[in-house]
């Protein structure tokens, strides 16, 4: 790309210098699928945050008389349950909106945690090489030797149900894959000429990592990590579905799916709703991550 030069003739507008991220943003904005997914996710996140001001029913208050009502059921008092009621007579719409809080939290936060820890481990292993690399990567291999679902369930099962235990077990599950990607990207970046040049001109390890390695490694690793969010959403809700995550009466999509399982015979549509939400969010995260990957031109 031609750099804007000071001697450019004033009549011809000099090409505006655009940074890398501006280019990524522009390419992403042109990706209609990714933008639609971003809009859906944003709407769900906003609704979850603003839930108390949306005029929804109380997500915790049930009614014995109005259990498992169909979609669009209106009470004699004139209140409409747009998405029906659950097995305790609680409003499904309110529970789905409030449920987005925990479900999204449990899907996104473990991946963020694992991104920080996994990148640190991977960059350390990749940059140090030799024995340090061996020690870190062999340890990662052991965790990698378990299918992710099994590892998450094993750790959660041993620790017991609860939100913090789910967070911990999901974080542990996602550290190994992220560390592996960070390690391989770091190893290839370290072999590039500009790193040698920096070292030859006297830069220390810390400076090289901060200036030259991080910038080249974190991007691809971040893209990879965003692709894990949908897996994390499915796994986190799966833990709650098994009774290993959120405890009742908290609204959370996986747990709602579990408690509504017996309702598939009486109100199949209502029973399937929480899973449809998990599906929608997970597919949006996946497509958005794909869009980000091609906008950043990352190949892993």
């Amino acid at each position, binding site marked *: 790309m031609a750099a804007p030069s000071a001697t450019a003739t004033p009549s011809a507008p000099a090409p505006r210098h655009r940074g890398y991220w501006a280019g990524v943003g522009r390419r992403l904005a042109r990706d209609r699928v990714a933008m639609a997914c971003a809009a859906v996710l944003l709407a769900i996140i906003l609704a979850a945050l603003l839930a108390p001001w949306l005029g929804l029913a109380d997500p915790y208050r049930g009614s014995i008389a109005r259990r498992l009502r169909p979609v669009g059921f209106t009470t004699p008092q004139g209140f409409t349950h747009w998405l029906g009621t659950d097995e305790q007579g609680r409003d499904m719409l309110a529970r789905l909106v409030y449920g987005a809080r925990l479900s999204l939290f449990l899907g996104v936060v473990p991946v963020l945690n694992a991104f920080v820890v996994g990148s640190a481990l991977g960059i350390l292993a990749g940059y140090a090489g030799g024995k340090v690399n061996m020690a870190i990567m062999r340890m990662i291999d*052991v965790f990698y*030797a*378990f299918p992710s679902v099994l590892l998450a369930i094993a750790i959660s099962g041993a620790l017991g149900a609860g939100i913090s235990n789910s967070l911990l077990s999901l974080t542990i599950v996602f550290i190994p894959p992220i560390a592996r990607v960070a390690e391989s990207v770091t190893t290839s970046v370290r072999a590039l000429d500009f790193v040698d040049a920096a070292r030859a001109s006297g830069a220390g390890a810390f400076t090289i990592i901060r200036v030259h390695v991080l910038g080249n490694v974190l991007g691809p690793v971040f893209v990879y990590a965003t692709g894990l969010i949908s897996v994390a959403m499915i796994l986190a809700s799966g833990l709650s579905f098994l009774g290993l995550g959120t405890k009742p009466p908290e609204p959370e999509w996986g747990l709602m799916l579990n408690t509504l399982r017996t309702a598939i015979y009486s109100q199949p549509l209502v029973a*399937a709703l929480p899973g449809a939400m*998990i599906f929608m969010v*997970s*597919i949006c995260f996946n497509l958005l991550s794909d869009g980000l990957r091609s906008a950043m031109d990352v190949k892993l």
Partner: protein
Amino acid sequence: MLLYILKRVFYVVPVALGVSLLCFLLVHIAPGDPLVSVLPADASQALVEEMRKAYGFDRPLPAQFALWLGRALAGDLGTSIATGRPVAGEVMKAVANTFLLAVAATLVGFVLGGVLGFVAGYFRDSWIDRLATTLSIVGVSVPHYWLGMVLVILFAVTLNWLPASGAGPGGSSQWAWDWEHAKYLILPAVTMSVIPMGIVTRTLRALVGDILGQEFVDALRAKGMRDGAIFLHVVKNAAPTALAVMGLQLGYLLGGSILIETVFSWPGTGFLLNAAIFQRDLPLLQGTILVLGIFFVALNLLVDVAQAALDPRIRRS
């Protein structure tokens, strides 16, 4: 080749040791005394001490690990706290059922994903490519336990074509090769096959695209080779990777079947794990996870060796 196999086996030993160490430590990260579920609440201090000795909990951790590993190697995984039966027997019975389900799902997923991925990679940007890409995205994004529920609602509750849960008529858990039993396998296997289907489609589509872009394909075409023969060359080049993906997916399904087995009450390892977790049956939990973990490690080894057998380039690197 033999040297390669030996090298892989040698490399697997520390990983397998690590896996067993992790399984062993699981019991020790569990909160509370592991003896709580065996002992009555009003047990005397002397009895507690005696039990602790009997289970070996009074020794230092490394000694306990060595003892446990030695027994595990000899096929003794301890006794289930809930049922009092040997863990090894319980796990093996369940593994057979899970294996059946996972193999069926892998086959379905691999055939569907293989065809879709190949066709999509061959005819990029056609309608079939878009269909395959959509299906693969759906496959990797759908919460499979929910898909299982939806399929039950459709085919068991509404249409009444297939049973909703269990592994055989009358709640039997003994598998037999007849239609009466096969009916019970269809829904869980199809539900499970969605994951490998999505991943195989994605991988093969990208792979076939890459292979078609290589120079040797142009050379074959320039030589005057027909499309059918070129297709064979592409298949040969894609086979090792496809095989590796299939092997890994089988491993993932073996270990990750717990959610689907819960939805369909399938009497496999997932069902066992579920019981172990909620009855706090730690020996059973430990044993099941150990067997599944070792299975996965062994499967990885097998995939590596098979890949090297198919592709001489891997052996030389």
